[in-house]
């Protein structure tokens, strides 16, 4: 896969670029970069420290958007898998894998920022907080989904196996989330510092800008990753066409011109009446 010595060194006659970018991604990317800068300024400079949490509240401007995008990735994977099962078009499969991979990325970030926040707050990197725990499980679910996709021998463009696993992903997330929530709420009354301080004014702006920056970044990454999956499908499709030609040539080495479609005149036996 990594070897660029493709059999067809693609011809570039203007038009389609040799990468996954486009005008849309460039606009999106610039917007994302600008918002990220604004986000950093609001989050780290312009907004005040929280009365209780101090400057640590600034981690929430990262943590909350990133966590929401984790759920967005999982939800999108399930949606795309359901659509693939209905329509069976390869685009939905590309969307499912792109969203799942982004889900894993943002899941790692959620766990990282969560435990970095937890260290000074709870004096430990890990605590059996309901959200932290269910996020960890969700991360494992996503990793399992990608692991199955990796070993799935089905041709590109989607498989029933991957789609059903994707379909079950978000329902599982919901069940796991609520049961873990319920489990922890037994022991942990709401008096303990939790991840929801009162946020208003510039702090709210910082969080909102963070959400926007996260959403734009997510969209940009999703578009690129989707196109990458699409390219992978196309490569495999072309390999298949070549393999079919090879296979036919193996049949009749003499007149092995794959382009001229099958000249095999199978006898028209027993016409239907």
């Amino acid at each position, binding site marked *: 896969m990594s070897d660029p010595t493709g059999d067809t060194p693609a011809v570039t006659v203007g038009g389609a670029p040799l990468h996954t970018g486009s005008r849309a991604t460039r606009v999106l990317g610039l917007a994302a970069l600008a918002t990220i800068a604004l986000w950093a300024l609001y989050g780290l400079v312009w907004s005040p420290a929280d009365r209780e949490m101090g400057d640590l509240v600034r981690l929430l401007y990262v943590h909350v958007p990133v966590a929401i995008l984790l759920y967005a990735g999982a939800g999108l994977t399930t949606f795309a898998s359901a659509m693939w099962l209905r329509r069976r078009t390869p685009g939905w499969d590309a969307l499912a894998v792109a969203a799942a991979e982004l889900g894993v990325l943002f899941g790692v970030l959620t766990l990282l920022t969560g435990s970095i926040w937890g260290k000074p707050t709870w004096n430990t990197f890990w605590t059996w907080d309901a959200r932290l725990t269910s996020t960890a499980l969700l991360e494992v679910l996503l990793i399992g989904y990608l692991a199955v996709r990796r070993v799935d021998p089905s041709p590109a463009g989607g498989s029933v196996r991957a789609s059903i696993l994707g379909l079950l992903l978000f329902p599982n997330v919901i069940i796991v989330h609520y049961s873990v929530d319920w489990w922890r709420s037994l022991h942990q009354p709401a008096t303990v510092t939790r991840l929801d301080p009162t946020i208003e004014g510039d702090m709210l702006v910082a969080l909102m800008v963070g959400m926007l920056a996260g959403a734009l970044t997510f969209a940009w990454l999703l578009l690129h990753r989707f196109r990458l999956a699409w390219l992978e499908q196309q490569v495999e499709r072309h390999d*298949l066409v070549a*393999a*079919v030609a090879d*296979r036919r*040539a193996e*049949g009749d080495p003499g007149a092995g011109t794959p382009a001229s479609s*099958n000249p095999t005149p*199978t*006898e*028209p036996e027993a016409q239907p009446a």
Partner: protein
Amino acid sequence: MELVVHFRAAVALLGRFPALAGIDLDVAQGQIVLLRGPNGAGKTTLLRACAGLVPVVDGVAEVLGADVRRQPRAVRGRVGLLGHSTGLYDDLTVAENVRFWGRAARADAADMAAALRLLGLDGRLRDVAVGGLSAGQRRRTSLACLLARRPQLWLLDEPHAGMDAAARDQVDALMHQAVGQGATVLFSSHELDRATSLADRVVEITGGVALPEPAPAPASAPAPAPEKVVVDVA
């Protein structure tokens, strides 16, 4: 006369390998057709594609009037496949295997008993666990499972392999009997002499395609088919 198998430029994948690379094949009802070709030519895949077990990704593939490309389930229950791997449970006895597969396909108890008898499995072998059988005996058991179901299309992948002389004759007789009851048989074999004389038609397969058949084939399809088939589709 109805076409039981109608393939046009069908491409079927084995994983990501195009085992069938645009094959054309027509088989009329009541024929016994031998698929011949070197190993890896695509015979097994063709037989499995006829049963809707292999995804056909391009071309036309119709079996028993159903489109197996889009609705592979439509032919299930009407075709019977004897594959390389026998599809039997090693821990169950011969009779239990035949009973399970027979009942799954809603076969009569009488048909199951008859199948066991016809294949010589109603004696001592009846209550032997399949895991303890020889290769030939396993194939006979699989054949009994298939026979009990009375499929309309028989797909036999090297039915003679691993069998002794008597059992091979038995297999041939079963094919004739099936055709006599209105079924159609597609099979492959390495016993070329035996198989060629058994078949109404020989289809040469190489590299995932069927070679054009020579015109003066001894038992060419259109003419003899009507006279051969006794139309008593039950």
